[in-house]
């Protein structure tokens, strides 16, 4: 097995037994990035020097017999909407293109404390708004499985670099499926934790009540390991929950006895691609063979979820993005007439079209006279969707279904049709609206060789259960093992 093919845990074992040094791992990964990333464009920025320096440091500490963190010497990538004092934090936006954060995000601190090595910042849809990474202000990322197709989004860069083995794992953020959808498109594991499980401090906000950081990895065990590293109460994030973080690894390989899996009948309606539906049915058969009960359930308000999401998320975004005005940092046009001109011209120039569209949607939604009809109503729908999930979890341990209606689509295919791009979020936004944890795991390929993902959802703060259920599938199948053939 080649070095780059290892999972985080396998690599950790090799590093621990000193069959390979962290420096060698980083050097080899940097070479692969140099070779393959010009086509894939998963990275916006690679921190080669910092990564090598850190690798040397960790190797030295290891040789001294120092106690090292659980991710010691493992190169990982992070999405460019998490603040790092190293390099830039641009959110793939021209408006923040030259922005260097003066502080590290909570998750960056956690990775550093675990002795992981951050290789660089990954590409994304601008401010995490999109489902294809085509909305990046610095050019799209390509899907390693088929470079004519999109990697999904908005964490497309993170999913692509893990799939292409240009990092051993990555962090993404998920506001309406932005971890799970690209994970499905790229055949990696993507976990969106319960809202409040991971601190958002230092995550550049998109939809504050929906955003959550989570791991993208080659398998479920690695996802458990990364989640364990970043999940922690943080008093700087008032919405992060002060609850014990279980050891997700402890019982990971123990199957759940008498597992009840609910499958919402609404998920198999029109719009769902036949091949995806077939892959999901087969995945459910795998669970059934492992002794699980498959129960048809209903999430009756599912049909309102997408509409509610596209009111709540843009509304919050319109407010969160108000600060990018060119006054204190970021892009500012030259020679503005006055401060109003400075605002409007800098923003008109600095934001891409999708971001502007959502700012306008959100601004409209929050305007006096429309607030009750749109924003407030969306909040009510949100409560009802949460109720639907609560009710479902009275009878089942887990809700299963597709991640996306179709496999990865072609670059440029939908970019002029925002509504059809929004439809790609239809199965994922419910978990964000309800605040529940959800995971995407590889469950097969289409005839064209494009990956398909299975989505699993459990009750809030039961990521341990969710990971075990996911692991049951993984240990019974090989869908997570194939890797794409890369073009140099």
């Amino acid at each position, binding site marked *: 097995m080649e070095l780059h093919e290892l999972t985080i845990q396998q690599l950790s074992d090799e590093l621990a037994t000193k069959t390979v040094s962290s420096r060698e791992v980083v050097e080899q990964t940097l070479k692969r990035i140099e070779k393959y990333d010009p086509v894939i464009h998963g990275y916006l920025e690679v921190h080669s020097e910092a990564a090598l320096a850190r690798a040397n440091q960790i190797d030295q500490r290891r040789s001294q017999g120092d106690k090292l963190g659980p991710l010691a010497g493992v190169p990982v990538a992070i999405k460019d909407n998490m*603040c790092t004092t190293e390099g830039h*934090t641009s959110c793939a936006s021209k408006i923040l293109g030259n922005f260097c954060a*003066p*502080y590290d995000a909570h998750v960056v601190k956690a990775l550093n404390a675990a002795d992981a090595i951050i290789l660089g910042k990954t590409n994304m849809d601008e401010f995490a708004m999109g489902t294809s990474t085509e909305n990046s202000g610095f050019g799209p990322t390509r899907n390693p499985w088929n470079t004519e197709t999109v990697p999904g989004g908005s964490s497309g860069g993170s999913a692509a670099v893990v799939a292409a083995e240009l990092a051993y794992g990555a962090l993404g953020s998920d506001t309406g499926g932005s971890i799970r959808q690209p994970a499905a498109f790229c055949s990696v594991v993507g976990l969106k934790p319960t809202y409040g499980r991971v601190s958002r401090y230092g995550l550049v906000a998109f939809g504050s009540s929906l955003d959550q950081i989570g791991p993208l990895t080659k398998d479920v065990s690695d996802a458990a390991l990364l989640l364990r590293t970043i999940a922690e109460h943080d008093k700087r994030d008032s919405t992060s929950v002060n609850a014990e973080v279980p050891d997700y690894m402890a019982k990971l390989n123990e199957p759940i006895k008498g597992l009840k899996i609910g499958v919402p009948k609404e998920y198999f309606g029109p719009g769902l691609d036949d091949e995806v539906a077939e892959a999901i049915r087969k995945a459910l058969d795998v669970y059934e063979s492992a002794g699980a009960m498959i129960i048809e359930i209903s999430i009756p308000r599912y049909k309102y979820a997408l509409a509610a999401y596209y009111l709540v998320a843009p509304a919050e975004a319109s407010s969160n993005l*108000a600060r990018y005005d060119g*006054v204190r940092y970021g892009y500012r046009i030259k020679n503005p007439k006055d401060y109003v001109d400075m605002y409007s011209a800098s923003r008109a120039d600095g934001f891409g079209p999708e971001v502007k569209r959502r700012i306008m949607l959100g601004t409209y939604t929050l*305007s*006096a006279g429309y607030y009750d009809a749109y924003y407030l109503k969306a909040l009510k729908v949100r409560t009802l969707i949460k109720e639907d999930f609560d009710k479902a979890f009275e009878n089942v341990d887990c809700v299963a279904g597709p991640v996306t209606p179709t496999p990865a689509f072609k670059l440029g295919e939908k970019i002029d049709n925002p509504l059809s791009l929004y439809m790609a979020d239809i199965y994922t936004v419910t978990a964000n609206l309800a605040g529940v944890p959800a995971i995407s795991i590889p469950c097969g390929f289409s005839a064209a060789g494009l990956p398909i993902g299975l989505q699993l959802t459990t009750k809030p703060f039961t990521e341990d259960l969710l990971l075990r259920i996911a692991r049951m599938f993984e240990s019974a199948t090989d869908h997570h093992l194939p890797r794409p053939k890369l073009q140099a």
Partner: protein
Amino acid sequence: MSPQKSHTPQYRPTVGLEIHVELATASKMFCACTNKFGDPPNTNVCPVCLGMPGVLPVMNRKAYEFAVRVGLALNCNIATYTKWDRKGYYYPDLPKNYQISQYDLPLSSNGYIDLPVDSQVKRVGITRAHLEEDAGKNVHDLPDCTGVDLNRAGVPLLEIVSEPDMNSPQEVMVYARAMRQLVRYLGVSEANMQHGHMRFEPNISLWIFDEAETDGGHYTPIVEVKNLNSFRALEKTVVFEIERQINEWQADSQNYRMDKMSKQNRGWDDVKEITVFQRHKEEAQEYRYFPEPDLLPVEIDEAWLKQIRSQVPELPAARLERFQKEFGLEAKLANLLTSEKSIADYFEQAVRAGASAKRAANMIQSQGLRLANERGTDVGSLGVWPERLAQLCKLADADKVSATATVAIFEAMMESEDSAEKIAQDKNLMQVSDASELESVVQQVLTENTKAVEDYRAGGKKSKKARGFLLGQVMQKSKGQANPKVAGEIIDKKVLG
């Protein structure tokens, strides 16, 4: 135009006041930065109050408690559940381009304050008091550019909104001053006007009515004047607006009415001393309020409320009444002593340490406050702490020092830690009240001034003057240390028998 009437309609001003009070917490409302006025620009800032990408606010519990303290003192309902909202508008001094505030669920509402106006009690309703974060400041005195100082950005700001219950400039001023006194009493704000700790926004309208008619009268359109930062500006604004609105009404009484013209914002021009039109309220900004998703709602339980309630001290009005009753002080003096909590505390501590109330009160009025004022400090910081003031009062009460001498002794006590008595002795200011000690001095004076003794004894016109002369001689011979009352009695006894 309305037909000219033979009689003049009457008017009554209707004024409501919004007051912004900066709270004196150690740190800012949503970050750990120092809350301090006057530091070099942009030194008390961090990623949170600079509105950097990715930052999150964390509520300052102390600020919330301070705000609730004010709500309790204003007899408000304290909400057991409140939340935060974002108020969106673009301005360079507002880093996030939204302000975290409270929109539909203020932490306190529906209260009142009772004010003494013309020997009557005037009750002014409090609509609401809510907490928000202050903005920074644009700095315009730089060459070729405008600077932004964000030291103030994120400082906790309490907005207190009154009902339109005030009907004269005098009532407005009594209310405003009472609010300043109250927040200082509560220890929640320095309320230093020069530091911008308190800003006023009056809403002014006139009720114009004609006693000869029964239509209930009319209101002039409401004028809101923004951002007044001194009592002087507030008073002048209200006075000016009342007159301006009367003139407007007289010019066009058919149209200058609340139901025909929208509310307008005006600004106060401190140089010309006039208000200037800014905009009609229908052009009002759209604030796009929505619940702040980065902060949890605040829930106050009984225990927390009880703890905050225990931090509310005796309020100025109650203390004023008690000082009059308990210490027999006249209203004016009691008012002075209760004007500031620090003065009232100082007075009470001195009395508790043994000073007689009247002596202590007079001494604070004539010495302490005068000297504190001269030195720009408060009476408690002069070095004559209450126990020492009590020593001095006791000396005076026991006739051991004269009232005149207390002035010099008080001033000396500010520079020295010696007791009042030691200072009086060192300065030869102890008074001789012992009759046997004074006998010989008096005798000597009488022997040396037989003419005056004759005049005194003779009675009539010259008698009073002669007695005064003799007493003066005794004071001179004793170097001012004789107790004039005792000395006078000895003279009387010796001369008149």
